[in-house]
């Protein structure tokens, strides 16, 4: 008889409202809610390190620059802020300081995407263009310049609608951008020549999340419908792809684990589903939350000698973060 799925190993409680975004690092967890609050949690003691009001409106997304130890947060107040976590940690300070800020367009709910190499010498930020949410700007955060401008399609050429989610990748020294659109299209751009590699309409509803495996071979996308699309990352006009039809509709997020063995989806039905990344079969359904799940994050392996890492964190509309260990 098969085993029962595991229960969460810890529940973080501290937000008073819907948690929009979460990021797990080796020692901390960062989470942001719709009141604009961000909380830093100690992963060992499971206690709050700091809670502060980062934005005047909801926090949409959070990321971490490993090389610089900065936290980046995007709010619906149309600001993208960089916070100096490194100094805060070293000096044991009582509050965290803003290093820089950038005005962005967060009207469309589209979350930013950050591409960083190991030493953060290359830091690229993909963000919807101001006042033109169909297009994407790529900003170099080191030089603070716009590197690629207005990547997108006119509605008359391809009817795709606003961009909903993005993923920047670098494969074989070439930069690519995957964008999920309002009408269900996923388009892969070659940024060097601003060409569309391919455009496929996997979904019938807006695409909510795209992720790419660490081997850069495959991508996955989810939307408000019940399809999980698994596709090949290639310049080829007709990439191979496979669709998994789930029995429930609506996924807010999808993430590969660092070892590309599994991926997880964040369901509106408050369940996390784990899939086998190669066989594409469902492996487990993790249920704890009482509200739809907003975002997921797998812990990354930063050193080779870290041993087995299988932590997964999820945030939900019920105001809780749950930490799991799976496979």
């Amino acid at each position, binding site marked *: 008889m098969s085993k029962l799925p595991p229960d969460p190993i810890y529940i973080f409680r501290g937000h008073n409202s819907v948690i929009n975004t979460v990021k797990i690092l080796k020692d901390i967890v960062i989470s942001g809610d719709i009141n604009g609050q961000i909380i830093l949690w100690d992963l060992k003691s499971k206690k709050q390190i700091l809670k502060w009001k980062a934005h005047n409106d909801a926090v949409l997304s959070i990321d971490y620059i490993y090389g610089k130890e900065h936290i980046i947060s995007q709010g619906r107040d149309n600001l993208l802020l960089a916070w100096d976590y490194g100094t805060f940690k070293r000096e044991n300070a009582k509050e965290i300081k803003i290093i820089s800020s950038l005005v962005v367009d967060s009207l469309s709910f589209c979350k930013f995407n950050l591409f960083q190499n190991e030493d953060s010498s290359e830091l690229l930020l993909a963000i919807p263009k101001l006042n033109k949410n169909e297009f994407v700007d790529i900003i170099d955060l080191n030089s603070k310049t716009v590197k690629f401008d207005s990547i997108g399609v006119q509605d008359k050429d391809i009817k795709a609608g606003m961009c909903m989610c993005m993923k920047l990748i670098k494969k074989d020294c070439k930069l690519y951008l995957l964008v999920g659109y309002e009408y269900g299209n996923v388009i892969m751009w070659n940024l060097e020549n601003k060409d569309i590699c391919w455009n496929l309409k996997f979904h019938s509803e807006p695409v909510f999340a795209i992720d790419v495996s660490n081997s850069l071979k495959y991508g996955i996308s989810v939307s408000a419908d019940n399809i999980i699309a698994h596709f090949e990352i290639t310049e080829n006009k007709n990439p191979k792809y496979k669709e*998994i039809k789930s029995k429930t509709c609506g996924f807010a997020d999808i993430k590969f684990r660092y070892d590309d063995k599994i991926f997880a989806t964040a369901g509106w039905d408050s369940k996390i589903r784990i899939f086998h990344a*190669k*066989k594409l079969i469902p492996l*487990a359904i993790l249920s704890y939350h009482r509200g739809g799940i907003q975002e997921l994050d797998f812990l990354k392996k930063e050193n080779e000698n870290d041993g087995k890492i299988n932590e997964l964190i999820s945030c939900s509309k019920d105001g809780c973060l749950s930490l799991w260990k799976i496979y």
Partner: protein
Amino acid sequence: MVESHILKNIRQKLSKSFKVIEYDIQYPKNNDIEIVKNALKEPYTFFIEKTNLSSNLSISKYFNSIIQNEYSIAKKEFISSYYQHFLEFIIEHVCVNWYPCFSQEEKKQLFENYFIPEKNVEYYEYLIHYSFYIISRYISLKEHNYIMQIMTKFLEKFLKRNTVNDFLSIRKEFDDSIWTQYVQLVSFLPDRMVSVYKLETDSFFMEKNFFKKIGIEISHSLNLIAENSKDSIENYKIQRLIILISKLFRLGKTDAIVEPLYNDMRKRIKNLSYRKVIGDLIKGLNMNELEKLFNYIMKQFQQSKSNENLLKNSLFLYDLSKDIISTCSSLQFLLGTKFLVRVNYNVEVLKILIYFFYKLDYDKFSSISLISILQNFINTWLDSYFMNNASKLQHQNITYGILICLSYLEHDDFSQTDIEIKFLKGVGKYLESTRYDIRTYGMVIAESMSEKLHKTDKKLDFELTETDEIKFLRSLVKNNLENYANEHRELVGDELEENNEEKEDNEDTNTINNDDYNQDQDVSSEDEDPDEVVSDLDITYDNSSDEESDDDDLEPYYMEEEEEITSAQELKNKIKPPLYITDCISGLIADEEPNKIEISLNTAPELIKSCGLNDIKEFGIRLCSILLNMSNNYELDNFEENRQEALNNLLIKNPTLIAPFICEQFYQKNYNLSQKFIMLNTLSTAANTLSSFLDNSKKNEKDEETIEIDNIIDRFNDINENQNINKDESIKKEDLSPIKIIAKRIEQHTRRFSRKSLIKKKVIRENKFLNYAKYFFFPLIGKFDCTSEIFTALNRSEQSLLLERLILTLGIITYCSMNSLDCRRMCRELWNFCWSYRFYETKSQRCNVRNSILFGYSVIFNSLSEELIMDEFGGNSFFGLGELEELYEWIMKLLEENKIESKDVKFSTDILYHLKSITEKKEQQLFN
């Protein structure tokens, strides 16, 4: 060709002979009894009796024309074609006329033998079928008492001599219809006898005795079939018996039929051929009849108390059904599901049945393995509907069942099943139960189950106080019949050894099956994942080719079966329509569930129509206010129609309660104009329906839209017009539109041969509205105040619209209450109301208040008789006409100023016509 020629020839001869015989019997020469006797004697001697007289056909008086070679054919022919007819003939002509004159011996020889032939005669089985048919037919021949008595006497004798088995032995090739006829006759014979003889029915034919006899005969014939089946079983006989048994079961004679059968089975079930016969019988029975048979057996089992009896019964059941249960799915369902889970016998039966399944020892993937039986129990146990609504007895039954099953199962049996998960789910639910007994049952199951599942240390213990019941429950797990059987091997005896051998054989085959199944499972999990849909493009898509080696460590966890929701329609289908008003109310207020609202609203009109009056008394007001306050947020189809119909039905169902409520709501501030229109609509429609002015049935046929005020006014117009046709031709002529003229001409030139279809059938109906009119009218008119906020808050055009509708509604209510006691008072109120608004200037293009005022007056003149109008509105003066005069002047002034629209002309002319006739009457009065 030759044969048929011979046959024809023989038939001719036989017909001729019988004609002569019949003539001789009917009209014997000199009324000589000897001639009759002789005529009666010959057919029996030659064609029925088994003698060698056949060679002496030539000496026969009547059959001498038949030659020796033709004899056998002639005999057959006699039986198939002439016998029945001859019986009828002698009943009619001999029974009354000659039979009493015969001596005892002659009676038997010459008459009775025809009906009750000797057993040794040829074609005996056919003769009895035919004879049985004739006798039973003549029993109910009420014209002749004597025949009836004789036939009853014969029938009793006949049935005592001929058992079911005699009838059964009719040849296989023979058509089944003769057997069906027999079944029919037998099953209704007692009824027939009772209807003929009433209280004087012979005890032999009393239902109880008769069917008991038939039951014994059936089991006897089964025995005989088994005994004679050394070579091959006579299957057709069993089939025929099945027909008979099924019929009798359906008629409710189960106990009488099964009792002897059951006793026989207990004695003889060890006999192989008997078991086979019974097996065939069981397989042939339908579900319902099978259930009745086994139900009887279970009831017998219920009486066994000691372990010894339980064991014996269980072994009997095992013997009875071990050979057939694997192939007979209905028996599997009956024993495995129905009798165990759904029907409550006592704990003894559970013990017997579960031990029976344990003995069967099918492998765990079979649907009749003990583990599947436990699954059945657990599924029911888990069902939240069962948990909350089942009686204590049902809970007891399921709990006993689970515990007894557990007593036979070992830890290993639970592997590869989801029992543990289901069990964990269920225990949680049961521990939360608010009913003490049920919680206790849940705890005992939890304890025993955890003991079985985890063997040792992790055992649950709720530290329940050991009452007698708990002791008993626990003992169910500890002691089972298997232990008892092991202790008393002498009871099981040889049987056990035999079984063991069989069991070994079974085990071999089981293991093979098991492997097969596992293989199947592997294949399906790899290749046929139901969640996976491969699109057309990716035939070559293969993402598992790389690094296949280290992937297999990811073993899927247990996943609950998720319910697939594919379409909105399916979702809708899952919601059951409400059955009670309370359910309907909760459905209507389910703001976030449009499907629920839609289904509730769709069912509401019919539900309200069919529900009891007490429900309306209790929930009517609430339901009415919910319906009034609903808004179509989800753009549901037919929302307005259903809402209106529901309100109408509600008002019709209980007018005294709902009408004042609606009138009160009409003057509340929190309703908008359209809601007020709905209220007025409801009032007028209900008034119409109650007063039966509108023929709803006709409406349905024509499939018109829902009733609205305008429709009603149109109808009112029609009524008025019809009234006016006879009285004032000149007005009528102006109204005729060109289409009507053409239609009339066509009608004139059409020749009809039958006018029937044109004549409308007038139906007289009671005006139920009369008693309720006051509840509709006075609350509505009484509270009106043009300075109140509900009126002034509206803009001018809306005010006019509302006022127009209000007056129309009041008019309709008044018209519907025609001839009621309150009508005069209502007319007075309406008159005053309309009068005060006669100078109201309409501010809207869409309506005209004046029109409605004229309508109101027209209604008054049509509702009251002229005398009453004179009395009420004619004023006190001897010469004047009081208010009538004022009205006349007002209308004339309107006409002069050309203020009356074309559509108002009808009403004003109607009023003027009435006024004219009143004036004429007054004049007559004055001058006389």
